[in-house]
């Protein structure tokens, strides 16, 4: 049977993790650029300012979402032992993609702890 669009077995699930990463990436780059134009934080504050804090919070939320989805897809075969080889391919690959996206989010977001935003 054809899986519904929202089904965890739909092939689109394979790329969802990296789509989330892409949206997060656009949000932090665009958000940083726009915020620096409207109301840049005082450079004397270093990295502990509202902008790094907001972008950092967004990063943590994204990270949590991606890790949660990774865990969900990884454990799906345990909850549904009847999955066939093709469905296992989708769930395992989706889990891998979510993990990669989570690692990419953490790595690319790490400079928020090191650099002030608008210099």
């Amino acid at each position: 049977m054809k899986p519904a669009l929202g089904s965890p077995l739909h092939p689109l699930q394979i790329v969802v993790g990296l789509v989330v990463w892409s949206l997060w990436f656009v949000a932090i780059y665009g958000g940083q650029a726009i915020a620096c134009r409207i109301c840049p934080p005082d450079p004397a504050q270093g990295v502990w300012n509202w902008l790094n804090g907001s972008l950092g919070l967004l990063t943590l939320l994204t990270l949590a979402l991606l890790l949660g989805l990774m865990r969900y897809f990884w454990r799906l075969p345990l909850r549904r032992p009847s999955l066939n080889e093709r469905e296992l391919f989708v769930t395992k690959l989706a889990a891998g993609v979510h993990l990669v996206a989570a690692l990419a989010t953490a790595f690319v977001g790490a400079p928020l702890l090191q650099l002030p935003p608008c210099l």
Partner: protein
Amino acid sequence: MNTRSNSAAPAADSDQLHDQFNEVWGNPRGWRALTIVNHTTIGLRFMVTGGFFFLVGGLLAMLIRTQLALPGYQLMEPDVYNQVFTMHGTVMMFLFAVPMMEGLAVYLIPKMLGARDLVFPRLSALGYFCYLFGGLILLSSIFLDVAPKAGWFMYTPLSSSAHTPGVNSDFWLLGITFVEISAVSAGVELVVSILRTRASGMALHKMPLYAWYILVMAMMIVVGFPPLILGSILLELERAADMPFFDVARGGDPVLWQHLFWLFGHPEVYIIFLPGAGIVSTLIPVFCQRPLVGYRWVVLGVLTTGFISFGLWVHHMFTVGIPQLAQAFFSAASMLVAIPTGVQIFAWIATLWLGRPVYRVPMLWLVGFLLVFVAGGLTGVMLALVPFNWQVHDTHFVVAHMHYVLVGGMFFPLMAGLYYWLPHFSGRMPSERLGRWGFWLFFIGFNATFLIMHWTGLIGMPRRVYTYDTGLGWDMPNLVSSIGSFIMAAGVATILLDILLHFRFGVPAPKNPWKADTLEWATSLPPSAYNFVSLPDVTDRHPLWQDPDLPDSIARGEHALTVIDHGRRETWGVDPLTGRTREIIHLPGNSWLPFITALFLTVLCLSLLNKVYWVALAATIATAVVVLRWSWENGAHPAAAPDAHTQPGEPPLHSRTFDGPGLWGMGVTLLADGALYLSLLFGWFYLWTVSPQWRVPDSQLNGWLMLASALLLSGGSFWLHRLIKRLRAGIHRGLLGQLALLALLALVQSAMLLWLLLSAGLAPTETAHDAVIFVLLAYSLFHCALAAVATGLQAWRVSYGYVGEAAPYEPVVVEQLWYYNLGVLWVSYAAIVLFPPTWGGM
């Protein structure tokens, strides 16, 4: 595992069956060869043309290296040198690398997937002619001494009319945009073909890895090329119509061009590399005679590379003046992209380790690829580091890195693939001896040219200088690079000689000469126009290893879809995930329409170049008429499907269902269109926030009129949605009338947009603000008018019986355009009416 079909023809009639197939699928000769739409011919044409452009690009490279061989040497004037290096990069990137890789994919994908053709054969042919004509227009500029000369990336303001007043930049902008029609159309076609026309039973996880690579590459083209197409349109509008998108004094910003260019430009590197890596992942298992290690890991790596490569573009702009934190994001992403590539490299090494590699000529090129590409990747990680990037920016170090990545990542695998698939093109085997000479000459020459160039760059020699003084330490490395380049050219000449000679003297290729596992070796050598006379079920990743007799049983017609007396070209339409057959996709036959369309587009391109706008208008109208005629011969039209009957037990024709390749094609095309629109929206917000002299003039834009237009479109979309819901339920009463009324509604709504545009009092030549609004409104107007025409055409087709209860498919395709227009218009309304007051405008 390869089941024999119940509907197969008797084996004894196989010769007769092949004759019947040739009658339907055969290629005409003489002038009528221009009507061929078959993927085998089109793929070969792409590759031969790409090979020609490679030789032109190589010749330009030799001129560059001759000029730089000695200090103070005067082979060319500076202006000519600028044209030569610009055209070298342009030809190699746009006319060789991308079309060559697409051409190979166009040739291979249906064969590897067990299909008879790509899903949109006429689009393949149009793509090829656009590529050929666009490439020739661009190339003609060299002979007219008006070639582009602002670098292959055409940075503004250097490429703007103030600094390059002639037609040089126009050749690039119009020629490349013309060629990009080809790239995007092939991208759309490959995506839909891979997802929808595989062998029966070939589930997603059983696809050959090459198809995964091409799927990702094609999606990257679909999303990655539109920013450059938009940038080219905007820059040409600035040059031809004085609309100041990149002019600081009038509210534009030249850095916007850089963003748009590199939004395309960096993914472009991976668009070129991924098919090369796909060749590597296909060939290494064959020469090791074992499956590739880590299929799932490699798929993960390819997907990750495809996405992350879109997050790197700013690393080309580290010296522009971007905040450190933003640079750090892109620096991190640039380092990160090495990891999925590394995963693939480890998979290849592990396969080599576990197998028993046989070092035939293709394997030599693969080993060369591993060495050269890994070196290029490592300097790439170095360049991802901002401080190092600043130091070597605009030096020959970057040139060396770029060639290690592009030649290593694309040319070496391409050569491996060319030698590997040569028996496919000629039915003969290449020469081992000349092949080895060609490889070693190229490998030695390449490294002599570019390894030393890292050093030249590190000691400070900038790029794009036409000469240099002696005594700076650059004399010897430049001479070595130039000598190396001539050795490399000798390698290319040897390869060319080998290929030419093998057509005459090559040993006839045996069946499956490399003992490969994939289905393209199940065709005859060279293949027939229909690839497979019968279509087998495939449930294994290595069908020819699993059943070595498969080519014979296919040729004997022992599998499915062997009935051809209906005169239709057919292949399976499958479920994208499971590979189960859902319908029979019937494909159009040979046609003059693609060639004629490309001819009119050529007239359009030339008339724009020469600024003869009434001819451009006439060519546009002529193109529209031909394209509408093209769309008429579709679906249930007698020319498309002369007979709707299928064999007992077979699924229906796609045009008699609610699904089909056109639906997917429209979806993927709108994805590309959406990428272009989002790039335009990015430009709007970018200029609004960043442009140093952004001005918001007093506006007469009638927000209420735009709102009314959007509401009317919303109502129309809802109406169409209901109509199609009824059609799905089998109720087709009043279809014609309702479609006609919807077309009228779309026409009225388009007229409102036109009124809005004309009454807004925009001054698009005075401020970038008004210029962007003009383009945003014109974009919506064009799409809404298109929806009106397409819907009207549907109503007309209902009256002919081409659309209706028995053939309900096409309105579903048009429905997507309505939804797209709806989304675009509301977003544009928010961007130009609702957003400005919140940001100090209007």
